[in-house]
């Protein structure tokens, strides 16, 4: 019933189908992006919490006094329940200052946002500390 010319066209059409469907199948997973909106909200909240804690010099006082327990308790109260966080304090030479873990998770996860905040103490010998705060929503 079919001659050779017609068979080639049908083969062409099937080839085209397979190419285009494979492209669609391969590109579909790429369209699902991580939840950037939630991460952005978390980043803003974390920054705002650090700003508020630093407004009256409390943050600098807790770091200078090496009062890591009080710093953790403050962060526990200021951050929403369920948010994983890990806070690290570095001095001017980027040496880690906190001898105790400040957080509720040492590894907040691959989708954690990282906030860097510069804290200047209000004491007579002004000191600078870089605070790195990792935050993540529970999976």
């Amino acid at each position, binding site marked *: *019933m*079919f*001659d050779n*010319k*017609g*068979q080639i*066209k*049908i083969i*062409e*059409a*099937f080839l*085209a*189908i397979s190419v*285009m*469907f494979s492209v*669609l199948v391969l*590109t*579909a997973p790429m*369209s*699902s*992006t991580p939840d*950037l*909106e939630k991460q952005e*909200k978390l980043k*803003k*909240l974390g920054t*705002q*919490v650090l*700003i*508020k*804690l630093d*407004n*009256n010099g*409390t943050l600098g006082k807790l770091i200078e006094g090496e*009062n890591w*327990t*009080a*710093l*953790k*308790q*403050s962060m*526990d*109260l*200021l951050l*929403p*329940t*369920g948010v994983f966080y890990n806070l690290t304090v570095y001095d001017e030479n980027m040496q880690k200052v906190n001898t105790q873990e400040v957080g509720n998770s040492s590894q907040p996860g691959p989708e954690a946002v990282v906030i860097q905040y510069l804290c200047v103490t209000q004491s007579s010998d002004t000191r600078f500390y870089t605070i790195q705060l990792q935050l993540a929503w529970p999976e």
Partner: protein
Amino acid sequence: MPASSIDTFLACSIMIALVLSAMVSTSNNLSPSINELSHKNDAERFQQLAQQLLLNKGTPINWGSLRDVVPESLGLADSASSLPYELDVDKVSRLNRQNIYSLSYSQLWQLLGVSDVSFRIEIKTLFNLSTTLISKTSGVNETTYQFDVYAEKSGTPVLALLHGYVVVRDYVNNFASSTSSNGHSSILVTIPNSVSGTAILLTFAKAESNSQIVTFNVYNFSHNSSEPWPNRTFTRLNPLNYVLNVTFTYPSEEVLKALVFTYNYNFSLTEKSRSAQTVEYDIPRLLDSSPMLLVTTGLNESSSFAEWVSYPQVPLETGADFDSSDTGAKTVSFSHIVAINSVLYKIVTKWGGSA
């Protein structure tokens, strides 16, 4: 019809089917991304509105303290502060619908000036405090009450320093304690039997880690009398611009005492003015890092009452009710930490697509 034409027709049909199915698949694959992009734009817009509400002072900048003034634009920031996220005690109090000078949601919505957006504002302390009466021991001259006070945040105990007061008629006493690692504290309060009526136990709790994190609880109980009267039965207390307006519910009422309490201090209030149904008292501007609790005790014929209000008037919730809304509109909420008179609070703003 030649065989080649049938083949060509079949091939073309397959190609057309292919193109159509590709278009449908592409549309299906992209629509979530397009929706997300559109939603992201909404979220950014709502975020800006939330920032505008918390960082702007509004017009006039002291609209909160002007009891009869409806502002031209809405902003809750404290006009006396240059720090971000510092809110004005009176602007916040005017969001509470229990205050006679409060703005309605309709007014707030118009002042925000964005007709296609509905919103809700919730302000609360950073942790909770609850009080339970455990026992009562009556003696000849006095009665001792034992209370359990529990400080927690979402079920997690909070270490806190406690300072509180008990008030019955013109009797005032205070106590101090702290919560243990399980968040509980046992409080003993002794009240002389020479007084009777509705008593209130005011407890302030300050987080051990941060003196700006303070919460409070008020517990009503009866002392040598029948069941305590619920708050706001006899008076309506409206604090604004460091003046406490007391509006009586019944004409025969008499105020025995008007007091202000903070974590560290308590004072009697000075009467400012009086009319048939209202009395006004000056509220001192205390620098204590604590919410204020304003208490009035009084008599209505044979009933002795004790009523209270907090200043700033929190916790509060105002605005659209998204929980019972069945419009299906997606809502976005933002959480911020704000300071009001040096005390930190959590404010949650919720935003939805249509008013």
